[in-house]
């Protein structure tokens, strides 16, 4: 069995992740931040430690500006809906996932102006095109750090400089890169970083959040929901400070226990070491697939400029059939189709058919890559 669907969710998880969740359920269990007895404080401490781990990984100076939620989609919605107002202009790229594109299209109907900067057919973004799109009413640039379709890395730090120069906020969707590629919110000029726990942070599903930088005016930020926070209980108005402003209702503390363990594993192993391993895997995969007649590999074909996510097609065989046969005949699990990113597929020229996507992760091996390349080779031969 070969698991190549890490771009959707990572599996397996590192040692200690499940154990941290079991420990929470069996030995802690209480509601964090709602009571002051010992188990409630222990529970709050676990959530706080997860905040610190995430802040440490992304070099965010203040753990209290790490706001947790169920996934990166909610984090991106919080940043976009929470900060953009009718009349504002926002710039994004044509490689975005629907988690950015759909909130932006909804905001567009409310009077927010949206410019989608076109990327190259390999998925690369020219920062000069972003700067050329800046208008007097531009307030934000919302950018995918790496495409979930072809893995192409977008020039976040360069765009960060542009954002600073023009006084704009930079929102980065780090769903595909958090934990797999170095991210330093201060050095890269990232004001808002959306992350998810269940991919390359190696935590469980149901965890994610938004890192909110010092340049974001929290007083202007509208939370997606209001409710109990365990603080300021005498007031019927939502507290104005972070993280409580954006964290109403009982959090997924059991999930956050697992997230902390996942992030600690990433920190222990080292993002640079994980990255080096994934670059090696991805280049071997790209080179192997490129060597098969009848296979078209999408993206930049250079592992140092992408994540370990590789999209391809076999001439004469639909992606859905490739996916089914890889699973049934070779035990290879991947994702086929449009990957919730129609704009990205239009950019690289694979809309509406889509692609076959191999999402490699820290636990994959060169042997698995070689076995998968051989399997694709046999399918390509049959398709001819």
């Amino acid at each position, binding site marked *: 069995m070969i698991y190549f669907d890490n771009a959707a969710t990572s599996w397996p998880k590192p040692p200690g992740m499940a154990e941290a969740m079991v420990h929470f359920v069996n030995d802690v269990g209480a509601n964090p*931040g709602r009571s002051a007895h010992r188990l409630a404080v222990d529970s709050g*401490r676990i959530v*706080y430690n997860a905040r610190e781990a995430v802040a440490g990984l992304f070099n965010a100076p203040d753990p*209290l500006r790490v706001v947790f939620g169920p996934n990166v989609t909610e984090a991106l919605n919080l940043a976009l809906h929470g900060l953009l107002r009718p009349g504002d202009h926002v710039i994004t790229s044509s490689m975005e996932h629907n988690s950015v594109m759909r909130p932006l299209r909804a905001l567009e109907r409310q009077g927010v102006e949206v410019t989608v900067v076109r990327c190259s057919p390999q998925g690369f973004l020219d920062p000069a095109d972003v700067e050329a799109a800046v208008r007097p009413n531009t307030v934000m640039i919302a950018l995918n750090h790496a495409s979930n379709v072809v893995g192409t890395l977008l020039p976040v730090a360069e765009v960060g400089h542009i954002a600073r120069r023009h006084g704009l906020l930079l929102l980065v969707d780090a769903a595909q890169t958090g934990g797999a590629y170095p991210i330093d919110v201060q050095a890269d000029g990232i004001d808002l970083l959306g992350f998810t726990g269940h991919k390359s942070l190696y935590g469980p599903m149901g965890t994610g959040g938004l890192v909110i930088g010092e340049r974001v005016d929290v007083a202007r930020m509208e939370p997606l929901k209001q409710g109990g926070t*365990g*603080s*300021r*209980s005498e007031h019927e108005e939502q*507290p104005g400070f972070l993280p409580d402003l954006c964290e109403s209702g009982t959090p997924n503390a059991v999930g956050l226990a697992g997230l902390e363990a996942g992030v600690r594993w990433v920190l222990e192993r080292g993002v640079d070491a994980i990255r080096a391993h994934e670059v090696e895997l991805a280049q071997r995969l790209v080179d192997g697939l490129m060597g098969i007649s009848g296979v078209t590999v999408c993206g930049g074909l250079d592992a140092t400029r992408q994540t370990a996510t590789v999209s391809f097609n076999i001439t004469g065989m639909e992606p859905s059939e490739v996916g089914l046969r890889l699973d049934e005949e070779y035990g290879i699990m991947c994702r086929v189709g449009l990957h919730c990113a129609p704009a990205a597929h239009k950019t690289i020229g694979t809309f509406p058919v889509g692609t076959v996507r191999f999402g490699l992760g820290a636990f994959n091996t060169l042997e698995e890559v070689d076995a998968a390349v051989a399997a694709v080779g046999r399918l390509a031969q049959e398709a001819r």
Partner: protein
Amino acid sequence: MTNKQYAVILVYSTSYALRAEKVLAEAGLSCKLIPVPRHLSSDCGVCVRVKWADSESVLRALEAAQVEIEGIHEM
């Protein structure tokens, strides 16, 4: 000679209390998170109890780490 035993530091939320706890532990100052006494605030959250004798060093440590507090009270 004072007979005051504890000082109670009120903070904005549990997250702040946990942050304060970490900062104080690193500074070698003992503390305990306790429910906010009703006579100090109607909040349902936690606050940070420290030894009265430590209160000045506690405030210095929290200020150095930029942990905002709502107030300090004797108890």
